[in-house]
């Protein structure tokens, strides 16, 4: 296996708030290699977005604090990186796409200028980025502009050269998300973090955007973290999946293995909450209970209060992560072992 692109080990994150200290991330582990598309799934508030933001070190500290853990990007610990070196990674090596395309573009600046700014920022760390575009004598701004236009074309915006002069509000939501993807890709990142990139979009646009991300992986051998709560998107797009619950990664593995043989009771519950074509009427199951209070979390497994398999052991101590199959790991004392679910 190739060397890991990103390796998160035992990442803890606390947030101080008016009511007390919230333990938001509680020992997150995640390894991403080139060519892999990792789906990170879980209910709202389980810490998946904060994991993504932590990789880019974009969580404001304070109120946040990282008591322990490491995030290694190609072997380098991002937690110990000087701010200016971290900034050099952002946009250049690590690209990010966020959920709401309507609020993530600067409303007062033309699309082209925003793209050019990102391109110039990335090129300041890697001048070769602009080389193959336009002959040098036209100047870096012109080169960056051409690169921006080509990127817009790549993400499927017709008449890109002309659209560079548009303002964000002149674009539809799907178009804006494409612009944001173009911005994230302009520095040719090695790792792309996409936080709910399609949640705010129509289903048809959603499929196009996901295809686009897949083609980026195929063309450039990058690693992707796709944060979503939509298991359908994961099944469609990802090679691997990590299920998070209340600040922990409770199950990881290849997408087929996890979806077909979910071992963690929480993953099973998530799967059971998705309506299938063949789900009998009245059999769709909601998940009882709510996400636990992160300020006073239950001791032991955080899922125990909602789990029908929980025992005294679960309530006392957090279970370590162990393999149930090659590459398929689960953090549970009583993982479900069965050939397959939802098999008709």
């Amino acid at each position: 296996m190739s060397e890991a692109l990103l390796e998160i080990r035992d990442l803890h994150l606390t947030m101080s708030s008016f009511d007390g200290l919230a333990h938001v991330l509680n020992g997150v582990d995640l390894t991403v290699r080139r060519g892999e598309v990792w789906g990170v799934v879980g209910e709202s508030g389980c810490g998946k977005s904060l994991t993504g933001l932590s990789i880019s070190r974009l969580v404001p500290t304070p109120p946040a604090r990282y008591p322990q853990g490491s995030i290694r990007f190609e072997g380098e610990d991002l937690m110990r990186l000087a701010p200016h070196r971290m900034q050099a990674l952002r946009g250049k090596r690590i690209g990010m796409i966020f959920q709401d395309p309507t609020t993530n573009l600067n409303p007062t600046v033309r699309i082209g200028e925003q793209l050019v700014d990102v391109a110039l920022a990335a090129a300041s760390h890697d001048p070769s980025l602009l080389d193959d575009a336009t002959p040098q004598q036209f100047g870096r701004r012109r080169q960056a502009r051409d690169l921006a236009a080509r990127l817009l074309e790549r993400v499927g915006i017709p008449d890109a050269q002309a659209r560079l002069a548009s303002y964000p509000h002149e674009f539809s939501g799907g178009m804006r998300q494409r612009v944001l993807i173009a911005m994230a890709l302009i520095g040719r990142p090695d790792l792309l973090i996409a936080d709910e990139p399609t949640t705010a979009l129509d289903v048809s646009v959603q499929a196009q955007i996901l295809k686009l991300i897949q083609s980026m992986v195929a063309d450039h051998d990058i690693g992707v973290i796709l944060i979503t709560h939509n298991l359908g998107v994961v099944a469609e797009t990802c090679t691997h999946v990590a299920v998070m619950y209340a600040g922990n990664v409770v199950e990881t593995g290849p997408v087929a293995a996890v979806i077909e043989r979910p071992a963690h009771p929480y993953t099973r519950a998530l799967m059971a909450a998705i309506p299938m074509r063949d789900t009998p009427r009245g059999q769709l199951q909601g998940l009882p209970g709510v996400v636990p209070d992160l300020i006073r979390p239950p001791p032991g497994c955080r899922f125990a209060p909602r789990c029908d398999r929980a025992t005294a052991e679960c309530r006392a101590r957090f279970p370590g992560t162990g393999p149930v199959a090659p590459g398929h790991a689960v953090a549970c004392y009583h993982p479900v072992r069965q050939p397959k679910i939802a098999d008709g």
Partner: protein
Amino acid sequence: MLQFILRRILLLIPVIFGLTIIMFVIARLLPGDPVGLAAGANATQAERQALATEFGLDRPIWAQYGTYVAGLARGDLGRSLLTRRPVAQDIATYLPATLELVLAALALAVILGVPLGLLTALWRNRWPDYLSQVVAIGAISMPRFFLGLLLQLVFAMWLMWLPLGGRLPIIVFPPHKVTGFLTIDALLSGNGTIFVTALRHLAMPTIALSLSPLATIMRMMRASAIEVMGQDYVTTARALGLPRRKIVTKVIARNAFSATLTVIGLYFGWLLGGTVLVETVFDWPGLGLYATKAIVSQDMMPVIGVALVSGLIFVVANLLIDTAYGLINPKVRYA
């Protein structure tokens, strides 16, 4: 956009009628004796009658208003009882002085207030921010005529660095009038000495007038910058590796300023009124001083004229601000 501006200009006509009617109603409430004040204590009954007839003050109010409006169409704002000169001519003399002062004060307030507000937002919840918040409230609370007196006392009377008041010393010939702004006219005529002299006269009134709007614009800018800093697009800009300098100038400052801009328009109107006290302190021969003298002697035509002109300037200034707002913030449609 042209259509938008034209429509707004057409809206000025009802404003003119409204303003003059309001001011005429106020003028009619006058329990005083403007004719007597203007004619002098020793005037005979016949002389007073002649004066009243000359100025049409013996006619019913609606007839006076009709004459006024008819004159307005020709640019005639009536005549001052006190100076016996046409009000329009007086206003043309005094307006440039006021505009020069108000624009200088507004420029100072914006040039200092916007960056200071941005800086304090970036320093949020650190001691320079706290300190600047207290200082800003203090600046807003400072009576500008008291501030003017203090400035005069320190810089004109004790240190003798700056002139006490006025626009130019009497012995200095003003530069050839082009804009009516002495500083600009001096530059246009290439007279550096007069430019410096005019600037030295302008300094203290400008500071006295601009302190309060400066503090308000700073607070406004701080608040909107803090709001903008919480927006998603700022996080995105950081996630995409934009340098901090660019995030501050292009993302935060630009969006925060477009929110602050509307307040600046309102402040223009405030300054037109606030200049009255500053002009009084510094003997600045502008509209405010003119209006004050007219009001004290119950000479209503100049007061109506000044109210009309300031009201129109206020409306036009806001039209300009709205246009600028549209240029900065492309989302605003000219509807």
